[in-house]
């Protein structure tokens, strides 16, 4: 246990206790707590403020530091998660190292949760302040180290996200190593047939991006390649890139962007997949379109959420509704003669009918048409026309079986309405009553429960398109281990914070974008890529990073070189030196403290969270008063 003799110089602690208006003051007797604080060992000054975080509260801290020659500060108020940086800056401004500051939370953890027991809340606040002061007595000033950064980046994955990120960094002037495991750039998108809301083929749409990457001299491309090993930490990564049929290449980079993409789920055993050749996934349908191998279709059914949302995976894959809407519109419009291109009759038929609505549209004011479409009136009129015996516009019956249509945002909603205008039927199913795909006399049919009519129906179809979700790359786990970054429950890379840090990893120096962090459409992947590139550019442009002084520290006299800490460190921040003794790579250490808790010799402790500090806090909490 910590003894007072361990404190070399007598500490001079100042304690500032906040009323937070009535947030604390209304439920805790702040005056009594302040009086108590002034009696604690090494406290030379204790005061209360109405709002410690307000200008006069902060000035009070600064003035008191000077006046009472304080060398450490305890603020007892709200939560360190929001206010620690503010008070630390205040301490530094008055010449007290920011690591000589301790936060005591008497609002979230006390006054707000014990609002009906003022006496006990006050006692608890006193205990918490005593714990904070006990910790403060053992604080030590820390120096934050500056680490040089190699101004180059590695981008893993040459799809839309990877290319966008690489281009963005290269245009800023940083050398970029772009690693693609396939034989050419383009990723998932290059295998698609058409894209939503553009008349171009997928290949045409991404070719300009590929051309730009090819023309950018700062980008070194490695195709048929993979990341073999990664050593190091932010600013200083040594990466070995393995390329099929040639020697691996070593590069040095300061930042890494992960953009490895995703793959569509293969719906083994679902909805008659593989049992009938005309049951295909939406990805396979794109390929058939590319090869112009679509049979002549009279009736086609989409089944949404095939394998998603509680079947094989738990999540909504975000893009499949819009993909189905896009494909349905393309089929309805017979775009690029995607259906039975060789059959002239079909072509002529389709050509005629597609012209008609376009001609109608011209007659009307465009704004009116948009408004009408949003209200769905256009669809109703079209429905009525069809009910009067009019055929669906393309001559193809298109049905989308869905749980609910996730056509989010302005554009997607318009496309959804457009599909409905094209006589695409959207039929809802419930998760406990999935549509069933079967064959009757060799012909495909879909059985479903009609939720409005409350009856079982059967629909003969020529083709079933299964909208399967995007799933993580099978080799994501390998890369996650190499880079020491986490995967979430679904196998996608997990960002540092879902809302506030969406393209960072918790590990500094590694960033993520595109579908490897979860399903996203092209525009979303591109925005994430730009974001990741700009995040990665911060250390690269600064040329250095400042490491927080929360790291582990090895007492070389106690270490026996057993190596347990090296094994447990999730960041590879410990290694054995030439004497076989553990040493800390300060820049790589994130300060979790796992090694400290593991060390059987008690040779490792954490700066700013030392055994001594934590034990003092625990002991103070349990003292009889």
């Amino acid at each position, binding site marked *: *246990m910590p003894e007072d003799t361990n404190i070399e110089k007598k500490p001079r602690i100042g304690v500032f206790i906040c009323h937070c208006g009535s947030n604390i003051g209304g439920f805790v007797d702040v005056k009594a707590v302040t009086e108590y604080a002034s009696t604690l060992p090494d406290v030379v000054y204790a005061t209360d403020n109405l709002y410690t975080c307000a200008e006069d509260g902060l000035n009070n801290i600064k003035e008191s530091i000077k006046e009472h020659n304080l060398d450490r500060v305890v603020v007892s108020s709200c*939560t*360190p*998660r929001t206010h620690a940086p503010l008070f630390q800056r205040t301490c530094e401004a008055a010449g007290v190292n920011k690591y000589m500051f301790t936060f005591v*939370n008497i*609002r*979230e*953890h*006390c006054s*707000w*949760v*014990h*609002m*009906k*027991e003022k006496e*006990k*809340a006050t*006692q*608890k606040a006193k*205990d*918490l302040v005593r*714990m904070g002061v006990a910790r403060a007595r053992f604080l030590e000033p820390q120096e934050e180290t500056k680490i040089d950064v190699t101004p180059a980046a590695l981008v893993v994955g040459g799809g839309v996200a990877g290319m966008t990120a690489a281009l963005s960094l290269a245009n800023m002037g940083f050398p970029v190593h772009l690693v693609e495991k396939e034989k050419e750039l383009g990723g998932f998108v290059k295998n698609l047939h058409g894209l939503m809301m553009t008349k171009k083929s997928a290949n045409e749409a991404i070719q300009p991006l590929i051309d730009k990457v090819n023309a950018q001299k700062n980008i070194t491309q490695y195709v048929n390649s993979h990341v073999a090993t990664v050593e190091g930490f932010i600013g200083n990564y040594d990466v070995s890139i393995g390329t099929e049929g040639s020697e691996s290449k070593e590069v040095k980079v300061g930042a890494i962007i992960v953009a490895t993409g995703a793959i569509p789920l293969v719906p083994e055993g679902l909805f008659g997949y593989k049992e009938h050749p005309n049951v295909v996934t939406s990805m396979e349908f794109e390929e058939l379109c590319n090869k112009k191998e679509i049979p002549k279709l009279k009736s086609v059914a989409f089944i949404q959420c095939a394998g998603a949302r509680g079947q094989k995976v738990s999540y909504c894959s975000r893009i499949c509704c819009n993909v189905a809407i896009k494909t349905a519109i393309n089929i309805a419009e017979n775009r690029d003669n995607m259906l039975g291109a060789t059959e002239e009759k079909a072509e002529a038929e389709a050509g005629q009918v597609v012209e008609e609505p376009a001609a109608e549209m011209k007659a009307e004011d465009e704004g009116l048409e948009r408004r009408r479409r949003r209200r769905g009136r256009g669809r109703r009129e079209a429905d009525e026309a069809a009910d009067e015996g009019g055929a669906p516009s393309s001559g193809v019956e298109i049905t989308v079986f869905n749980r609910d249509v996730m056509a989010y945002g302005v554009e997607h909603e318009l496309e959804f309405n457009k599909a409905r205008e094209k006589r695409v039927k959207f039929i809802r199913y419930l998760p406990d009553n999935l549509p069933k795909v079967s064959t009757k006399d060799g012909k495909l049919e879909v059985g479903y429960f009609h939720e409005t009519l409350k009856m079982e129906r059967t629909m003969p179809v020529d083709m079933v398109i299964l909208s399967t979700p995007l799933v993580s790359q099978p080799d994501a786990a390998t890369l996650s281990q190499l880079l*020491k*970054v*986490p*995967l*979430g*429950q679904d196998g996608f890379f997990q960002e540092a914070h879902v809302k506030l840090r969406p393209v960072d990893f*918790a590990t500094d120096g590694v960033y993520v974008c595109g579908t490897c962090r979860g399903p996203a459409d092209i525009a979303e992947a591109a925005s994430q890529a730009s974001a990741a590139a700009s995040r990665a550019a911060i250390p690269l442009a600064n040329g250095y990073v400042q490491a927080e002084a*929360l790291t582990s520290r090895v007492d070389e006299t106690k270490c026996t070189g057993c190596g347990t800490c090296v094994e*447990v460190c*999730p*960041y590879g921040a410990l290694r054995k030196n030439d004497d076989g003794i553990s040493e800390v790579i300060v820049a790589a250490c*994130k*300060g*979790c*403290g*796992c090694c*400290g*808790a*593991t060390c059987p010799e*008690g040779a490792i402790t*954490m700066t700013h*969270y030392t*055994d001594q500090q*934590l*034990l003092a*806090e*625990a*002991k103070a*909490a*349990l003292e*009889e008063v």
Partner: protein
Amino acid sequence: MSSATPNAGGEHKLEQEDFEPRILVFCCNWCSYAGADLAGVSRLQMPPHFRVIRVMCSARVDPEFVLRAFQKGADGVLVAGCHPADCHYIGGNYRTRRRIALLRILLQQFGFDPGRLKLEWISAGEGERFQKTIVEFTDVVNELGPSPVRGGD
């Protein structure tokens, strides 16, 4: 029955009148501490017997800290970390899970009821879970009575 909370735990059966349990809670900075903060922001009322110590990761909780706490008279120790697969430090919580499982066995050998040591996963968004955990654990410790170190059994 003065130590029972009037508004959170409902009826308590106390072994001893005026028993004020001392409960130490180790919260990891990223999930559980934030969960505790959220409980506060949401004004979720709970018994006032727990004292939170912030650590960066639940894996920082050296078994020694827990044993020392019991030695110094803690009636219960709660270690709270991020949910599995959610650890800010990749997998610290898995190590915590193993350590606590072993520690409970060890505690029993030292004559402590293993129920006095609890591990719980509480995310930054789970203020209610934090409250529920504190209420339930306080109940358990109340039921067990004072720790052997403080003269209980």
